[in-house]
């Protein structure tokens, strides 16, 4: 009993069409809605630093801005780039093309940020990177659609790096995460070390998200450098320090310099292991009343955790973006919005007053912290004591040194 051939071809076509139809992305939305996409690492080594915490911060920012009072509709969506540039770039492209996302925020992981920056520029949207570190984002890879918000490798090198060299750490061995961020951090810190009379004795490059540092640590030990500079972040830094303790690195006279350490890493290591570590952040939850209030609200969705400077940067960048969109009465031209954001001085409860430079660099003060000893900590999260404040004017790389094409002259 064989039905006619044509019916089967038709059925096949129908099946295929249904299949493709169900795969179709959601239909385009109105442009009345300002859509914010939080693109971050939801489950990998940076998920504690950014991740769901950044999403929570973005939502708090929208709440505080109160869109209804300004006659605006704002939506926040989130996505996981898994620390892979292709996943991040594809998601960004799809968000811009199909889901009508207007601005992407966060993106810890510099390699993803560079790719997202390219896509953002192509589609003329806005990218507010409060997560990535590479100073190239405001240097050779700067773009009229990108603003780097919270920190960068130059700032870290000139804050942590300089202070370590000045206190006697003049021979260095680098343990570097082998991608855009780690390489930038090593490069910027090397410049500082050499400029201050120090020497770099060698380096060991490890893949992103490494779990066993034993052979790299052994190389560091063999080099006999006084300082082992950790040009990595998140889970990699935590693992390196923990295993360093296991291999007796610090008890044999060498010291770790965590070039990018967040409060989440300190919490993961525990004060007992991390005490004495010198680090730089541009925001600390316990520094002002406003910060404490924000933290309390933020902790409702992240109980037991503390926000690092990254979610704080997400909050600050989202608020300023919404102010700029309100002033322009439109969100469709990314370059125009970014230009407006650079024109308007920034002011929010977390970072206070600041500004954004022509190369896309947000300017604010940086703080050198030292991790407290366990007996000095009075309550959970009481991890840092302030060692020095670097004023905003000195914290970031001078405009002329960046090689950013947007900077004329």
């Amino acid at each position, binding site marked *: 009993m064989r039905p006619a051939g044509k019916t089967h071809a038709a059925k096949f076509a129908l099946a295929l069409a249904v299949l493709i139809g169900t795969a179709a992305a959601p239909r385009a939305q109105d442009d009345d809605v300002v859509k914010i996409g939080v693109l971050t690492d*939801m*489950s*990998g*080594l940076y*998920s*504690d630093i950014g991740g769901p915490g950044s999403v929570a911060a973005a939502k708090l920012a929208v709440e505080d801005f109160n869109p209804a009072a300004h006659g605006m509709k704002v939506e926040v969506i989130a996505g996981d780039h*898994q620390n892979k540039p292709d996943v991040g770039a594809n998601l960004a492209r799809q968000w811009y093309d199909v889901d009508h996302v207007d601005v992407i925020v966060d993106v810890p992981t510099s390699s993803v940020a560079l790719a997202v920056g390219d896509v953002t520029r192509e589609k003329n949207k806005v990218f507010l990177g409060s997560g990535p570190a590479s100073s190239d984002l405001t240097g050779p890879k700067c773009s009229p659609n990108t603003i780097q918000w919270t920190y960068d490798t130059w700032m870290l090198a000139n804050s942590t790096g300089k202070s370590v060299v000045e206190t006697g750490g003049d021979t260095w061995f680098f343990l570097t995460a082998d991608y855009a961020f780690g390489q930038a951090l090593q490069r910027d810190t090397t410049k500082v070390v050499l400029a201050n009379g120090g020497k770099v004795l060698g380096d*060991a490059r490890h893949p992103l*998200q490494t*779990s*066993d540092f*034993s*052979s790299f640590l*052994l*190389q560091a*030990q*063999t080099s006999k450098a006084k300082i082992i500079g950790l040009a990595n972040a*998140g*889970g990699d830094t935590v*693992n390196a320090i*923990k295993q360093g303790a*296991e*291999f*007796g690195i610090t008890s*044999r006279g060498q010291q770790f310099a965590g070039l990018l350490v967040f409060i989440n890493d300190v919490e*993961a290591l525990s004060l007992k292991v991390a005490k004495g570590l010198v680090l730089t952040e541009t925001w600390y939850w316990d520094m002002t009343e406003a910060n404490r209030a924000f933290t309390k609200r933020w902790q409702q969705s992240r109980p037991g955790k503390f926000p690092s400077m990254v979610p704080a940067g997400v909050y600050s960048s989202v608020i300023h973006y919404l102010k700029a969109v309100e002033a322009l009465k439109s969100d469709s031209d990314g370059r125009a919005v970014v230009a407006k954001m650079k024109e308007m001085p920034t002011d929010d409860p977390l970072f206070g007053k600041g500004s954004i430079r022509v190369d896309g660099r947000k300017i604010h003060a940086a703080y050198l912290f030292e991790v407290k000893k366990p007996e000095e900590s009075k309550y959970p999260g009481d991890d840092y004591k302030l060692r020095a404040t670097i004023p905003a004017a000195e914290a970031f790389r001078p405009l002329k040194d960046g090689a950013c094409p947007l900077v004329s002259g």
Partner: protein
Amino acid sequence: MFEIFGIPSQALFGQLLLGLINGSFYALLSLGLAVIFGMLNIINFTHGAQYMMGAFAAYFLLNGIDILVPHFTGTWPPTFASVHFGLGLSYWWALILAPILVGITGLVIEQVFLQHLRKLDPLYGLLLTFGLGLVIEGLFRNAYGSSGQPYQAPAALQGGRNLGFMFLPNYRAWVIVLSFAVCLATWFAIERTRLGSHLRAATENPVLVRAFGFNVPLMVTLTYGFGVALAALAGVMAAPIYNVSPQMGTDLIIVVFAVVVIGGMGSILGAILTGFALGVIEGLTKVFYPEASNTVIFVIMAIVLLIRPAGLFGRRA
């Protein structure tokens, strides 16, 4: 402190020792694979996931596990609450319990899935176990993210010894000792005992052995469970060194496959010796030519296969 080929001896011996530690894991895991392949003629691609489950089992036994439990409050549907089941069992308990628990899941897998594949091309076994590995890894990743959970070495094994050329943590020394002991015991059991001879006979000629009255299907199932238990044991041992994370097995398992192929697919001795040897070779490469340390095992595999297609100790040509 002297130098060999321009490399300080401290670095050389240190990396060799670290290589021996890595080799311990390669040996244990390839032993499990060799046992399974020898008996079932299946490449157990789930091995990496089972290694990971062993590490997680140790983590759960110590820290407890949160399970969603329904609360029946008289209304329907029941509400779910997360209940913490804690056992606080230390590493030493985990060394025994985790392989047993994970081994039992192995028995289930063999009964439910693998026994249907006995008549098919062994490649289907590979595909099925590959799929199972993905399912298990995906489930754990959903629950625990992809960065690791911390697991402390037991107090008795913390600290270390200064060997002069390097500082060797006690726990890592223990890994070498235990893995060597387990490999030796397994080899002895299979090659030198009566039970082992029954197993080997059943591999060669299952029909005849069955005719002698031995329960061959049971032997097959138990062998698979044992191979899986070996993987889980390696996982428990790995937990304090590498973080307990859902993808700890995936990239490791490819290297272990290369080890098994070099050693010879059905050979127990080949798997053990090659595992330790390749760990040491990898360590050596890290000293002299670090960029190649990831690829050296594969290069060796390619060379061995060209010269001795059955592997160094393999029986089937």
